[in-house]
C-alpha cells in the first residue's frame, strides 16, 4: 500500500535516488503486539493489593476554599489514606521549569483556591475504585465562588479578576520585561501608509480535546532498593520522571519509569500530572496505587489544545504584494502555564507564515483564563495561526480581485529570502506545493504562476534586513496599572530604530556540558555522504552569523534614548544550577 506520490522532478538535486526507507512503507515494530492484543499499555500491568486513587475536584470555574471536611471519607470502608496539598513535598511547579522557562505557578493539589472547573484539591486512596469514588464524593468542601473570566480579551481588560496569582496581570511574562512576545521586522506603519488597501481580519479557534481512547493514568508501586516503579501513559517519559522527582522532592534515581506504549496521545499526555499523583500515593500508602482518569476527567480536566484568537492587519499593494502585516495573537493558556508559553514563542517564529513580507510586527500574548489549562496538540502554536493566515490570504485575494492561489505564489517565500525572525529561508517549497495542489484540484492558474520556482528570484534585495522600528510598549504590569485597553500595539514609552542589516546576536543554543559531549563531525559523515554534490542554490547577500560564533555580540544601541532591547544574560542552557531549584532535575545531577 502506498498512498504517497513523489514529484521526483522537483528538487531532484537535493536528495540521492538510492533511499531505502523514505517513500516506502515500513511495518511498525510493535504491530504484532497490537493485533494480538499483547502490547502492554500501562494499565496492563497487574499488581497484587493494588489501591485506587481518586480526586476531589472543584465544581466552580474560580473559587476560594474556605474549608475541607473529609472526616466522613476517612472512616469509610476500604479507605486507606486521604492525600492533601500538605502531603506534596514541593506543591508548586511549572512544567517548563525543567528548561528554566517561566515561574512556578501550579500546585499538584490546590489548598487555597481553584482556578478552573475540575481542579483537584484532595485525593482519596481506597481498596477499590468504587470505594475511592464514594469516599471522594463524601468530602465536603466549603467553596467561596469568585468572579471568573473565560475569554482572552476579557482577561486583559482593566479590572479583570486575577486567575493565577503568580501572574497577577493574567499574562505570561516574556524576557522578564514584557506581557507578550514581540516580533519586529521593518516598519509596519510605513508599510501601511504605502499600501493601496488595508485588509483586516479576526480569527478564533476553540479548544480541542485530544480524546485518546486510553485515558491518562499511571500505576506506581514500591520496588526493591527503596525505589518506586511507575508504569505510565506518558508521551514524555523522562520529562514526567523529572517532574515527579521535583514535585516529590526526591532523587530521580529512586524512580523507575516504564512507558512507551501509549494508547493515543496527540500531545495530551505530556503534562505529567498522573505520575506524581500515583508515585505520591505509593509513597504514602506503601502499596501499589493506580491513578487513572475516567472518561469524564479526560474530557474535563485533560488539557486540550488551547483556544486562540488572531487579529491580522495587512497593507496590500494593488498588484497583490503584501507590504506590511501586523499580528495581535492571544493564546488561551487556561488557568496555568503548562506549555502555552512555549506555544507563543513557537508561533512567533512561524510569522508571517510562508510569505516574504518586508514589514512584520506581532504581539502575541499567553493569557490566563479560568478555563482548563491548555497544552500540546499536534502542531500547537502553528496550526491555529496557519488557519488564521490562510483565511486572511483568501480575504486579501478577494480584496485585490486576485486568484487566491496566484496571490500565494506571488507572496511566497523563496530560497534566500530573509524571514521576519532574521534567518535566511531555505528549502522553501510553497510555490511548488501551490502548483501541484492547483493541478490536483483542477484549478487553473496563469502560465506565469506555473513558471515560478522557489529556487529562483529569492535573495538579493529580498535577503536584506530592513531598518526596524522598535518600541518598549506592553511592559509587565503596565496594562493594568495604566488601564491600557486591549488594542494592538498601543502604549507609551520610547520608540527606537535599529539600522538596516542588523542580524542580531548569534546565540549558541546549548553548549556541550562536557567536552566529550560535543558533536563529532567525523561520525556524522555518513549523513553528509548523501549529498553527492554541493546543492546549487543562489548565494544570499546577507548570511546570518555562524551558529557556532563564540560570544554573543550586543545589538547596536537604538538611536533614541531607549532601553537596550532584551538580550538573554546567558545562552539558553540546560543543567544550570539555579538557586531554589531541586538538584535532582534532569541534567543537573552529574554536576
Amino acid at each position, binding site marked *: 500500500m502506498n498512498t504517497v506520490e513523489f514529484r521526483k522532478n522537483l528538487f531532484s538535486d537535493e536528495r540521492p535516488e538510492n533511499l531505502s526507507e523514505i517513500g516506502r512503507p515500513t511495518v511498525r515494530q510493535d504491530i504484532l503486539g497490537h493485533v494480538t492484543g499483547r502490547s502492554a499499555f500501562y494499565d496492563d500491568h497487574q499488581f497484587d493489593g493494588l489501591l485506587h486513587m481518586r480526586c476531589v475536584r472543584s465544581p466552580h470555574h474560580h473559587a476560594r476554599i474556605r474549608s475541607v471536611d473529609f472526616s466522613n471519607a476517612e472512616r469509610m470502608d476500604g479507605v486507606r489514606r486521604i492525600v492533601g496539598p500538605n502531603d506534596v513535598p514541593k506543591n508548586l511547579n511549572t512544567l517548563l521549569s525543567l528548561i528554566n522557562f517561566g515561574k512556578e505557578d501550579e500546585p499538584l493539589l490546590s489548598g487555597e483556591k481553584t482556578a478552573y472547573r475540575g481542579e483537584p484539591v484532595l485525593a482519596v486512596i481506597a481498596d477499590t*475504585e*468504587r470505594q475511592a*469514588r*464514594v469516599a471522594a*464524593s463524601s468530602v465536603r468542601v466549603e467553596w467561596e465562588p469568585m468572579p471568573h473570566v473565560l475569554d482572552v480579551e476579557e482577561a486583559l481588560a482593566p479590572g479583570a479578576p486575577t486567575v493565577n496569582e503568580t501572574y497577577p496581570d493574567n499574562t505570561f511574562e516574556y524576557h522578564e520585561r514584557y506581557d507578550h512576545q514581540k516580533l519586529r521586522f521593518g516598519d509596519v506603519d510605513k508599510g501601511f501608509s504605502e499600501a493601496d488597501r488595508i485588509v483586516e481580519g479576526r480569527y478564533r479557534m476553540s479548544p480541542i480535546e485530544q480524546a485518546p481512547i486510553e485515558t491518562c493514568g499511571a500505576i506506581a508501586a514500591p520496588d526493591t532498593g527503596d525505589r518506586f516503579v511507575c508504569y505510565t501513559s506518558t508521551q514524555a517519559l523522562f520529562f514526567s520522571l523529572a517532574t515527579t522527582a521535583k514535585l516529590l522532592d526526591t532523587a530521580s534515581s529512586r524512580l523507575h519509569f516504564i512507558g512507551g506504549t501509549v494508547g493515543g496521545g496527540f500531545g495530551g499526555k505530556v503534562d505529567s500530572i498522573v505520575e506524581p499523583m500515583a508515585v505520591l500515593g505509593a509513597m504514602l500508602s506503601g502499596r501499589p496505587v493506580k491513578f487513572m482518569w*475516567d472518561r*469524564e476527567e479526560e474530557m474535563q480536566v485533560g488539557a486540550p489544545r488551547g483556544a486562540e484568537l488572531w487579529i491580522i492587519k495587512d497593507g496590500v499593494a494593488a498588484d497583490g504584494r503584501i507590504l506590511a502585516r501586523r499580528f495581535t495573537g492571544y493564546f488561551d493558556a487556561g488557568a496555568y502555564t503548562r506549555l502555552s508559553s512555549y506555544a507563543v514563542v513557537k508561533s512567533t517564529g512561524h510569522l508571517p507564515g510562508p510569505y516574504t513580507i518586508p514589514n512584520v510586527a506581532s504581539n502575541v500574548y499567553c493569557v490566563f483564563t479560568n478555563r482548563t489549562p491548555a497544552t500540546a496538540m499536534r502542531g500547537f502554536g502553528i496550526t491555529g495561526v496557519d488557519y488564521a493566515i490562510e483565511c486572511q490570504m483568501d480575504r486579501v485575494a478577494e480584496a485585490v480581485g486576485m486568484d487566491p492561489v496566484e496571490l500565494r505564489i506571488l507572496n511566497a517565500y523563496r530560497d534566500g529570502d530573509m524571514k521576519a525572525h532574521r534567518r535566511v529561508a531555505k528549502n522553501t517549497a510553497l510555490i511548488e506545493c501551490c502548483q501541484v495542489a492547483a493541478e490536483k484540484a483542477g484549478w487553473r492558474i496563469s502560465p506565469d504562476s506555473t513558471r515560478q520556482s522557489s529556487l529562483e528570484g529569492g535573495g538579493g534585495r529580498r535577503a536584506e534586513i530592513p531598518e526596524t522600528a522598535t518600541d518598549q510598549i506592553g511592559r509587565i504590569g503596565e496594562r493594568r496599572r495604566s488601564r491600557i485597553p486591549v488594542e494592538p500595539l498601543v502604549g507609551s514609552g520610547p520608540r527606537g530604530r535599529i539600522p538596516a542589516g542588523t542580524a542580531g546576536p548569534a546565540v549558541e543554543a546549548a553548549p556541550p556540558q562536557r567536552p566529550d559531549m560535543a558533536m563529532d563531525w567525523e561520525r556524522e559523515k555518513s549523513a553528509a555522504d548523501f549529498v553527492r554534490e554541493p546543492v546549487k542554490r543562489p548565494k544570499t547577500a546577507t548570511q546570518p552569523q555562524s551558529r557556532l560564533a563564540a560570544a554573543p555580540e550586543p545589538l547596536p544601541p537604538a538611536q533614541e534614548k531607549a532601553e537596550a532591547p532584551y538580550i538573554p544574560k546567558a545562552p539558553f542552557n540546560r543543567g544550570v544550577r539555579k538557586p531554589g531549584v531541586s538538584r535532582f532535575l534532569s541534567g543537573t545531577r552529574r554536576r
Partner: protein
Amino acid sequence: MVEVLAFESIAQAAAALRDRTVYLGGGTLVMRAVNFGDSSIERIVLANDPSVKAIRTEGNRVVLGSGATMADVLASKETAFLASVARGIGGPAVRSMATVGGNLFAQHPYGDFAAAILALDAKLSLTDGSEIDMGSFLARRGSLRSLVARIQFERPASGEFHFRKMSRVKPKGVSVISIAALIPNSAGRVSNARIAYCGMGETPVRASAAEAALEGRTLDPQGIAAAVSAASAGLAPPDDAIASSWYRKEVAPVLLRRLLLGEAD
C-alpha cells in the same frame, strides 16, 4: 458494594424494586451509572424471563417485549418498518445490548426508539397489570414504581411510518434530533398525523403544531409548508455539547421537510 438479585419473572423483579434499587435490562444505562460510582444504586434486580424478549403480533397489533434488543427488532420480520430506527442506535455491540424498554427511560439526548413508540401511539403494559399510553408514561417515567413489560401498538399501513435522524458523526452518532412520524392519508390528504421528536425536549415530545398544520393537506411542497414552519413551535430543546437549542430549532424544519417529502438527507 452493589447487591445483585436475579428473578424468574419481570413481575417478581418489579416487586423487589424499592429505594436505591434499579432494574437492569440491557445494561447500557444502568451499568454506565454503576461504573461511575453512582452511590444511589445499591441493588440491581434482574429478570431471567424469556417472555420479555419476545416480539409477536396479535391480529393487527404488534407486541414488543420490553427486553427485546435493537438487534432483535432488526432480526424480526414483524418489526421491519422499525429497522431504520433500530439501526440508527449505536454500533452493533450497543444494539445487541440496548433494549426497547431501556430506550423508553433513556435521558436526553438518547431515546430515538422512544420517539418512534410515541409516534405509533403505543400502549405500555406495566408489571402492576395496568396499561398506560406513551404520552402519560413520558410525563411520569421518573416516578414510576413498576416496570414496563410490553409495548403494543397498531401496525402502521405500508408507507405510513417514517423516521429520520440527524447526527454530527458519520456513519452514525448521537442524535442532534430525530423525527418519527405516522402519516396516515386518505385520498391523498393527511389525517391524524402523529409526529414525535427525540432531542427537542427533555423527553421525546410531539410536534403538535406541525401535526395540526398538516391536517387535510397534501404531501407536496405547498401542502407541507405550514407544518414545516411550525416544526419547532412551542418547543424548547435543550442546549448541550451535541447542539445548541437554537441549532436544534433550525434543524427541525429541515429534517421534517425531508421526511415529509421523502427527500434525501
